[in-house]
């Protein structure tokens, strides 16, 4: 492939819309008949609604209706109708279904009024009496009842291999520790919102905050019994999601229900506290036992994970697969149990399972390297894996060693004194830590459509999403590259349920999945253009095959003799075509089955810890990433930077505090739930090492949404140890824990 576009630091094609306020998010579409819905949330975590008095609220002038479990319209009743593309096994939550309360802040009513102010005021007048039952939200207390689910949402734990218990017992060096991290919430800056537009003839158009419009469309069809042609879901811009938009959330249900009932357009936007009422990274506790021989060979891994789920769905994520991916070890035992609590079901949050499992593993490995008396980098390299032992397949590519080499050099790792508390500046203790990580590089099936007009404008489309990652931009680059057009002549459309099928945007698979579909559809377009040229008998392309032509500078031409060329605009005009259109469906190649595809990273971190105050500052980060081919260094760099800062939040700040008395996340706003701010960020360097991968997908890309975060928190924890001599195994590492 001649690369003019791919690999170029192209500015975002949506940049102008975003800096001028023209990009519109789900709550920003309107209609002349728009009404506003405000959700009333339950104040208890478990029990029943005994009585709900809406009379006073209904008397407020301008209130249109109040929907509760008593007066809601008829809904589907089967679980399967409510089960969305990302639903874990179990029985999904059904809003307003009956009087049962399953978790605190459960939506129990929707107040709809002429203005937002009226709806919000009236919502405050709704009186609710509950029949309270005792709830259980205390993870530690409930851990004794942990269970193995009948069906895992994640990869089920692989069978043990080797003789883990014996090997552990006989190992020269051993560590056995418990690592835990709390529940955390995604908190994208945009709060979840849906605007449902009543089209007047029974059809609705819904602007939803979602990571895949088809998921919302299916959900609406299932729950409200609507036909596909009567529901169109759009999501042109998403104000961040990080997993929170994988499942249709209850504001969608509410807006659609009210629209269908009132026969007028309704918008429902959640409040920031309500953003803590659906899905979070589950609290997870991990028991890790590792053994090594005298020479630093990793002899045994025993890894047990306990993670939170709801009472109604068995959510699980890939917490325990990482020892098998990251290290060579002959004796391994893994288990993953769930702890059911009276909370909403957890939900994939940036690198679900990876951030969790790699945090524990990489802290434990660091501890073991100290036991053995080896440099933490050297120890990891000694136990480097060349195949994924969970599935016993080689990696499709793995340039992790190169990440170590380049990262260590840039960071200056060789100057590190391994002794904890050996470096200081005034009253600041300085520590250097390292960790490595991985994330699966998947390709899924996806469709795409391409339309080339006689003016030379190419529009490529797919029902995927751009949650800020840069889908619009990189897909435009791929299409421009394939068709040899300037990027200004290419438009990529997404976030519309009427476009060709595409999976949810998540798991770092969009670049690979949709990118492959875009490439394929452009190849098909190329073939069609060649056929078109061949229609005339005197065409110089008459006898040539597609392999012999190339598309460049707006022309189709012969590779052998580039003077034999025809501008695409001319080709269409000569054949009296206004446009040429093709669709394609791309699928992962069978060959991928034989390999295990992962992206990899190493993160080096420097922290400053104030010896008197315990405050921790991440002063320096070097993140070296092997992520396959980099489509756009600008968007790629930004993805990794964002991931690094998420890692800083995870390590030092983010913690959804459960108040067990109420069974509610009590710090449910941005004043109390701390996310990193500008002044928390200091030097961050990102390196992309060269990595060629012919197997992972036709583009050789691996996706970058998750790999940036996975290694960061353990590297910080290890640096804090190096600075202070204290191992903090319980996130977040707050100052009280290092004092």
């Amino acid at each position, binding site marked *: 492939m001649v690369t003019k576009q791919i690999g170029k630091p192209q500015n975002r094609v*949506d940049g102008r819309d975003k800096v*001028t306020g023209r990009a519109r998010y789900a709550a920003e579409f309107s209609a002349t008949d728009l009404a506003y819905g405000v959700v009333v949330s339950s104040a208890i975590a478990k029990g029943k609604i005994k009585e709900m008095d809406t009379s006073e609220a209904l008397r407020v002038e301008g209130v249109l209706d109040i929907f509760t479990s008593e007066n809601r319209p008829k809904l589907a009743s089967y679980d399967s109708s409510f089960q969305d593309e990302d639903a874990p096994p179990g029985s999904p939550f059904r809003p307003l279904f009956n009087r049962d309360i399953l978790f605190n802040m459960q939506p129990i009513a929707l107040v709809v009024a002429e203005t937002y102010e009226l709806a919000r005021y009236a919502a405050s007048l709704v009186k609710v009496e509950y029949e309270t039952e005792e709830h259980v939200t205390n993870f530690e207390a409930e851990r004794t009842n942990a269970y193995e689910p009948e069906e895992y949402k994640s990869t089920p734990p692989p069978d043990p291999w080797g003789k883990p218990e014996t090997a552990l017992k006989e190992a020269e060096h051993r560590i056995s520790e418990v690592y835990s991290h709390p529940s955390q919430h995604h908190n994208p800056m*945009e709060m979840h919102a849906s605007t449902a537009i009543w089209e007047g003839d029974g059809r609705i158009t819904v602007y939803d905050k979602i990571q895949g419009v088809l998921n919302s469309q299916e959900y609406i069809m299932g729950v409200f019994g609507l036909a596909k042609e009567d529901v169109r879901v759009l999501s042109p811009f998403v104000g*961040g999601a990080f997993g929170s938009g994988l499942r249709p959330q209850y504001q969608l249900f509410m807006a659609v229900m009210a629209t269908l009932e009132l026969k007028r357009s309704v918008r429902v936007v959640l409040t920031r506290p309500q953003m803590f009422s659906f899905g979070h990274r589950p609290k997870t506790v991990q028991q890790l036992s590792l053994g090594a021989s005298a020479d630093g060979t990793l002899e045994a891994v025993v890894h047990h994970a306990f993670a939170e789920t709801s009472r109604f769905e068995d959510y699980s994520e890939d917490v325990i697969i990482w020892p098998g991916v990251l290290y060579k070890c002959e004796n391994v035992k893994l288990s993953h149990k769930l702890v059911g609590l009276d909370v909403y079901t957890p939900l994939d949050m940036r690198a679900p399972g990876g951030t969790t499992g790699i945090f524990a593993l990489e802290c434990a490995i660091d501890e073991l390297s100290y036991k053995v008396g080896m440099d933490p980098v050297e120890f990891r390299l000694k136990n480097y894996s060349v195949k994924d032992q969970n599935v016993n397949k080689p990696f499709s590519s793995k340039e992790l060693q190169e990440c170590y080499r380049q990262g260590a050099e840039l960071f200056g790792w060789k100057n590190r004194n391994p002794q904890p508390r050996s470096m200081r500046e005034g009253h600041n203790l300085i520590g250097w830590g390292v960790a490595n990580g991985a994330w699966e590089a998947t390709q899924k099936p996806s469709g795409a459509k391409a339309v080339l007009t006689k003016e030379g404008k190419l529009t490529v489309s797919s029902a995927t999403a751009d949650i800020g990652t840069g889908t619009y931009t990189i897909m435009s680059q791929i299409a421009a590259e394939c068709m040899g057009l300037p990027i200004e002549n290419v438009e990529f459309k997404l976030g519309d349920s009427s476009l060709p099928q595409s999976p949810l945007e998540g798991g770092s698979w969009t670049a690979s999945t949709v990118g492959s579909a875009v490439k394929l559809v452009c190849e098909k377009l190329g073939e069609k253009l060649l056929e078109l040229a061949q229609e005339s008998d005197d065409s110089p392309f008459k006898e040539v095959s597609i392999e012999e032509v190339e598309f460049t500078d707006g022309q189709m031409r012969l590779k052998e003799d580039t003077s034999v060329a025809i501008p695409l605009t001319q080709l269409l005009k000569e054949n009296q075509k206004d446009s040429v259109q093709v669709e394609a469906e791309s699928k992962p190649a069978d060959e991928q089955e034989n390999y295990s595809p992962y992206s990899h990273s190493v993160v080096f971190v420097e922290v400053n810890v104030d010896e008197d105050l315990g405050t921790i500052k991440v002063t320096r980060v070097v993140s070296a990433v092997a992520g396959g081919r980099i489509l756009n260094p600008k968007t790629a760099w930004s*993805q990794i930077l964002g991931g690094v800062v998420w890692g800083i939040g995870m390590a030092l700040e983010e913690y959804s505090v459960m108040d067990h008395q109420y069974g509610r996340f009590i710090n449910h706003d*941005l004043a109390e739930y701390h996310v990193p701010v500008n002044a928390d960020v200091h030097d*961050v360097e990102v390196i992309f090492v060269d990595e060629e991968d012919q197997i992972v997908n036709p583009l050789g890309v691996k996706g970058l949404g998750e790999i940036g975060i996975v290694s960061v928190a353990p590297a910080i924890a290890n640096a804090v140890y190096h600075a202070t001599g204290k191992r903090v195994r319980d996130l977040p590492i707050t100052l009280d824990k290092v004092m």
Partner: protein
Amino acid sequence: MTKISVTVNGTAQTHEVEPRQLLVYYLREKLGLTGTHIGCDTSSCGACTVHMDGMAVKSCSILAVQADGCEITTIEGLAKGDQLHPVQEGFKECHGLQCGFCTPGMIMSATDLLQNNPDPTEEDIRHALEGNICRCTGYHNIVRSIQWAAEKMKTSARALDGAPVSTSPVYASVNLNQQQQV
């Protein structure tokens, strides 16, 4: 209902508003200026930042009635026609955004900063934007975007002083009231 008169992005507006309506809802719902976003209920995030009489304010913590008689500039009013403000250009060039949800607020805060401190250090920028949260970018490129804009504005100011410089867009100052006269 209370009657208010405000000038928004140079246009005089008079409306009856509910006394409890926040300025941000007035801008978004009444005037359709949805570039000003809402990201919290605790005045923590800065997504709603606009300029009121030339100063950056969080429009979620001001009632619409408090804006009576004031001049408001929102993100929609920052560019001059097709010509972006240097801070807008900076965010576009330096990739100071991903999802773009925090961006209007960041830009409005940053223009206010540069108005008071045309030559901020990285540290100055990081502290001045303490009231604006971004969940996507990791902030780094936001800082670079603002430095880029500061540089551009200095060059442009020198151009006005008669010094020979390139033909980049001219902004005498970020003071928005003055800008309209340039």
